[in-house]
């Protein structure tokens, strides 16, 4: 069906170009044409086919008619204490991902965990959660998790394994376990460390190796150089005026991202134009979440960041910053070509903000870059202000995990290993190519693999043991600041699994029972035995042992050591068309692939590329042109000493030329229905020497193409001002930039609304729910999207259906590129969900009143009244309504999702549903409801307790999880509510206000803080003229709260 395009205004003079994808930018006419079509893929149905379908529909219309079925009630036999059926409980625990743990609060319905929130008491989360945490329940209920012990692939049981292990260990005790090897993932668990010590007593010659595909080795080693010991830098970005990130995605991909985001956003929140705002400089090869939020961004191949860092230090030293011997070490450093201006500006600003700036290096950069950054922070006197240090929690982790894994493989090769215990992880899948682990494991007489799935590694092992999920098992860990945190199970193991510590206990004399093991570790902490039980219970309730965080200390880098390391470290060859680079990055969604069968994560669009269900090799437009490749071409990447890989290319604006970014964690072969065959496994290209980046790669076209599906071209907004941004200077001269971008418009007044209300506008006297979304705070991390999925039972639909534009996400994050440059565009993220228009176009066209306004201004949706005409979605200017084209939870939907023949949604997956939200069926429309179940729960609770609803009591799922506090929800009629204050902000604007829809959601315009030194070619803004007159009429009036 075609419709006439909305009339769009001609772009204002001087307005910046805003585009969503390269395709749209290069071919605007085709984009305009595509926007006319309601369906992304046309329906090809003949007249006969349509009549046939009509007849079949009529015949089937009565098929479902039956008498109401008899339903049963199954009460408890013995009711558990404190469980009130229908009232959710919350338990504090920890979840670990990205190699670190984060405090979480888990919602549990009658013993069934359904939703993860951040733990406000925990320093790692401060109440927020990221997308991996939000998706943890889906990992728990994954139907493809391993359900039994297997011996050589055949089903066995724990009894058989226990007997076999006891027999083997007995024989190996004679030589002190010299032929026993253990491979673990780095862990901060005090219980695991304790058991390792105990095991070392019993088996003194047993070696424990560590491996994880995304390791912190470089930063640890860098700290050892600078401080003589491994420490973790902790930055408080809230106090920093200037931040320089060297290839560091500290807002998303690095450890401590939640904490960093909170601080970073705090330093940039603007209530008024005079508020201070930090400036972020980012140097990176590929556009990351952090890079998208940069005020000044420099794209630079990862290998050249080293040279840049040295030149930066040399430049900083010119500003009377005392760098000692480091100054000599970097004296002859030459900045990579074309980076001089950026470098000078950054160095000047760092020096000017001594004690109020921060320099950070990413985990990908070599150790001496980290050391140099420590030296810079010391010299800039940031230590104690924006930067402090905490001891590393896992002291047993070796410096180089790749080398450690290689040592294990070599030992096996030399026939030194009889028993190999692999506790967690999937090394066969993610090991670098020069470690032939699959072949080596086959050589070991007894190999034992504990893992959640019967995966690529399990296939090669003698024994496969099912591992418990974190929500099923006891455990503990230390947060980045040393806080002792307890992991308590929310549910008994679904699949008869055991945890890592329970298996490790087999090497000791302790009984392999998680609860006892963790308690025994904790008992050592209690002052007296009498105090133990009380302290234990308090720790369980809080999720942490209060006061156990290690003292932050102010370490000062030893400049001589840093200088020596820099002198010793050779500079990488410069990157160019004849020397292409590959940089490996953790995936923005699945990180290292540990959640490799999680459909929620697969279907969330990548924050930058917006690709779903796949990864891709990111190539810059110029490099793509030089290599003759286009998006979706399959390219092969080869390098001496590595396996050649084939991967689909994606031309990505903002990518450094001659540098290709590959995301890890994809291309699983043996994980389950959702993960198998998704994307491309790039690990075989890595070697133990080049785990993070490599140069000298050869790229060639294979001639094949691969369909990549992305959502960035869906829901076009057709050239209107949607994501509005300005620089800090522009904001200062014109605080009302979101409404009047220039002086002329101010003088001529605003355009009157083209659409007048159809009837008298309703007054909202009671509650008046509203939301503000601060584009200045939003980092685009996607946590809210997954939180919405988990809270509202949002279906996932699979790659093919997303291609047809049938994704179901109620909340999407639009990513806009701004500016004419394809190479270095600015980025704006804009979360858009239903904005709950007061004059909702969708309501006017619903023939059955299935969507209708409540007296509190919510645009309600009654699913059982909807007959599926889709008129509402057609008439929605924001494109936020989602239609259930198929029964996503039925056989046809399941088939679409996995492209296989699964007939029904697995029983365990149903356990993830929120019981307070309807699971929608085929043929109905759905959309964001402002989490109406939470509003009703609060209203009922307040009425039951005879009190008023607190000003900021109700939090929507997206708001609760947002690490940047970008989303605020509440009652616009309540003067004490945060949202009422923010909705009056001068940066506030209603999306598409010109249509007269009067949205309840107010977006707050984004402010950038570009460096004046780099942009002096921009004209100085005109001095502001005060007295702007009365507010324009097309803006949603915000009534003064009572």
């Amino acid at each position: 069906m075609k419709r006439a395009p909305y009339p769009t205004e001609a772009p204002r003079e001087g307005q910046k170009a805003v585009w969503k994808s390269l395709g749209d930018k290069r071919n605007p006419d085709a984009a305009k044409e595509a926007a006319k079509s309601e369906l992304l893929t046309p329906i090809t149905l003949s007249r006969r086919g349509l009549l046939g379908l009509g007849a079949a529909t009529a015949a089937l219309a009565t098929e479902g008619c039956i008498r109401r079925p008899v339903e049963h009630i199954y009460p408890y036999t013995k009711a558990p204490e404190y469980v009130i059926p229908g009232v959710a409980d919350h338990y504090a625990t920890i979840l670990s991902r990205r190699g670190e743990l984060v405090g979480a609060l888990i919602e549990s319905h009658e013993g069934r965990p359904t939703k993860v929130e951040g733990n406000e008491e925990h320093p790692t989360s401060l109440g927020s959660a990221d997308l991996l945490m939000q998706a943890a329940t889906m990992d728990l209920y994954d139907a493809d998790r391993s359900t039994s012990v297997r011996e050589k692939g055949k089903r066995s049981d724990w009894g058989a394994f226990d007997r076999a292990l006891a027999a083997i260990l007995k024989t190996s005790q004679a030589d002190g376990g010299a032929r026993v090897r253990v491979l673990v993932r780095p862990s901060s668990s005090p219980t695991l460390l304790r058991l390792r010590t105990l095991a070392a007593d019993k088996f003194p010659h047993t070696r424990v190796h560590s491996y994880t595909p995304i390791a912190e080795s470089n930063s640890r080693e860098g700290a050892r150089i600078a401080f003589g010991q491994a420490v973790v830098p902790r930055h408080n970005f809230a106090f920093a005026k200037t931040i320089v990130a060297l290839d560091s995605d500290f807002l998303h991909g690095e450890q401590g991202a939640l904490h960093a985001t909170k601080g970073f956003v705090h330093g940039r929140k603007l209530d008024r134009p005079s508020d201070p705002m930090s400036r972020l400089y980012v140097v990176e090869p590929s556009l990351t979440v952090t890079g998208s939020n940069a005020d000044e961004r420099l794209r630079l191949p990862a290998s050249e960041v080293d040279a840049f860092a040295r030149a930066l230090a040399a430049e900083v030293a010119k500003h009377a910053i005392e760098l000692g011997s480091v100054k000599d070490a970097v004296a002859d450093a030459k900045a990579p070509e074309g980076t001089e201006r950026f470098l000078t500006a950054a160095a000047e600003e760092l020096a000017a903000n001594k004690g109020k700036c921060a320099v950070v290096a990413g985990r990908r950069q070599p150790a001496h870059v980290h050391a140099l950054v420590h030296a810079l922070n010391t010299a800039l006197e940031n230590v104690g202000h924006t930067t402090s240090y905490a001891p590393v929690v896992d002291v047993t982790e070796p410096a180089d995990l790749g080398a450690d894994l290689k040592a294990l493989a070599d030992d096996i090769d030399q026939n030194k290993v009889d028993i190999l215990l692999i506790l967690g992880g999937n090394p066969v899948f993610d090991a670098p190519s020069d470690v032939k682990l699959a072949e080596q494991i086959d050589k070991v007489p007894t190999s034992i693999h504990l893992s959640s799935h019967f995966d690529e590694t399990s296939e090669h092992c003698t024994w496969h043991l099912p591992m418990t999920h974190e929500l099923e098992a006891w455990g503990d860990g230390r947060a980045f600041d040393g806080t002792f945190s307890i992991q308590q199970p929310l549910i008994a193991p679904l699949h008869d699994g055991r945890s890592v510590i329970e298996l490790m206990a087999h090497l000791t004399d302790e009984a392999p029972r998680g609860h006892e093991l963790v308690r025994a570790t904790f008992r050592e902490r209690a002052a007296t035995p009498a105090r133990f039980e009380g302290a234990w219970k308090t720790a369980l309730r809080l999720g942490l042992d209060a006061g156990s965080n290690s003292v932050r200390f102010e370490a000062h880098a030893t400049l001589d050591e840093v200088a020596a390391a820099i002198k010793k470290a050779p500079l990488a060859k410069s990157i160019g068309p004849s020397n292409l680079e590959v940089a490996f990055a953790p995936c923005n969604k699945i990180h290292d692939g540990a959640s490799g069968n999680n459909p929620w994560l697969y279907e969330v669009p990548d924050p930058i590329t917006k690709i779903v269900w796949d990864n891709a090799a990111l190539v810059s437009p110029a490099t793509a042109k030089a290599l003759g490749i286009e998006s979706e071409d399959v390219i092969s990447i080869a390098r001496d000493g590595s396996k050649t890989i084939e991967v689909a290319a994606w031309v990505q604006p903002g990518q450094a030329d001659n540098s290709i970014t590959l995301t890890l964690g994809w291309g699983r072969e043996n994980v389950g229905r959702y993960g198998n065959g998704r994307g491309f496994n790039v690990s075989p290209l890595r070697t133990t020497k080049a785990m993070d980046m490599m140069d000298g790669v050869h790229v060639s076209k294979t001639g094949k193409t691969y369909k990549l599906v992305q959502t960035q071209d869906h829901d076009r907004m057709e050239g209107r001002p949607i994501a509005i941004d300005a620089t800090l200077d522009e904001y200062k001269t014109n605080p009302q930039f979101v409404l009047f971008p220039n002086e002329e418009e101010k003088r001529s007044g605003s355009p009157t609304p083209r659409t007048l209300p159809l009837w008298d506008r309703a007054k909202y006297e009671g509650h008046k729910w509203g939301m503000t979304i601060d584009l200045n705070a939003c980092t685009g991390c996607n946590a809210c999207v997954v939180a919405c999925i988990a809270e509202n039972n949002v279906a996932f639909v699979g790659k093919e259906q997303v291609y047809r534009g049938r994704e179901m996400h109620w909340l999407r994050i639009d990513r806009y590129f701004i500016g004419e440059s394809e190479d270095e565009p600015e980025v704006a993220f804009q979360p858009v969900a239903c904005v709950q228009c007061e004059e909702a176009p969708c309501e006017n066209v619903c023939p059955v009143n299935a969507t209708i306004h409540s007296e509190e201004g919510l645009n309600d949706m009654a699913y059982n009244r909807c007959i599926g005409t889709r008129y509402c979605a057609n008439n929605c200017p924001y494109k936020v309504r989602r239609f259930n084209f198929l029964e996503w939870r039925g056989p046809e939907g399941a088939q679409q999702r996995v492209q296989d023949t699964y007939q029904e949604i697995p029983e365990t997956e149903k356990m993830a549903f929120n019981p307070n939200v309807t699971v929608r069926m085929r043929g109905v429309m759905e959309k964001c409801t402002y989490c109406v179940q939470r509003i009703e729960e609060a209203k009922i609770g307040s009425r039951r307790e005879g009190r008023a609803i607190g000003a900021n009591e109700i939090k929507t799922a997206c708001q609760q999880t947002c690490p940047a506090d970008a989303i605020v929800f509440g009652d616009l009629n309540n003067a004490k509510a945060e949202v009422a204050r923010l909705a009056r902000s001068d940066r506030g604007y209603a999306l598409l206000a010109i249509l007269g829809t009067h949205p309840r959601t107010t977006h707050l315009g984004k402010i950038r803080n570009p460096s004046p030194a780099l942009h002096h070619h921009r004209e100085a803004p005109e001095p502001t003229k005060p007295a702007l007159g009365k507010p324009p009429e097309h803006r949603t009036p915000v009534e003064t709260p009572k």
Partner: protein
Amino acid sequence: MQIFPRALNKLPLYGAVGSLVGLMGAIAVPWYYFSPKNLQVGYEPKQPVPYSHRLHAGQMGMDCRYCHAQVERAAHAMVPPTQTCMGCHTLVKTDSAMLAPIRESWETGSPVEWVKVHKLPEHTYFNHSVHVAVGVGCVTCHGRIDQMDVVRLDQPIAMQWCLECHRNAAPNLRPKDQITNMAWTPDQAPPGWKAPEVHPPTNCSGCHR
């Protein structure tokens, strides 16, 4: 010339009246006979245990909340766990044949399969606690449970019926200490008592989420 007999002159009239009656019947018959009031009220399924509310709540005067303990706290009033039954029946009627399923449940741990009588329409969320908190008596929706040997659906639990009260709740409210009193009538209200001002939701999201 007359082709048709005179008697047929009235045929159009009969036809018109007849089709009008037929049409009204076609509307009225399904209107009533397919209504929840006709189809659902009186639903009285056989339960696995012939538990008598007339005996327990009526004759012995047990408070509703002794068994339906969460009615003031949660959405579900809660059908009691077997434990609650056994609290008394380990001492009273310990070998009654009628109680065999209860004892079996207690020993095996498998729940008693009660048949649901008060079924809400699909996609509807009802909360007991808020209704009890504002003063809706049990009897208002459930009828004289204290006089039923077998629980019977007393009111059509359908949207129109719900909305009738949500639009004008005052007549159905009572002092909070009379919630479980099955025999309470408005003239028993203490002098000066006035139904509280409640504004029950009448919009979709009040019940549909």
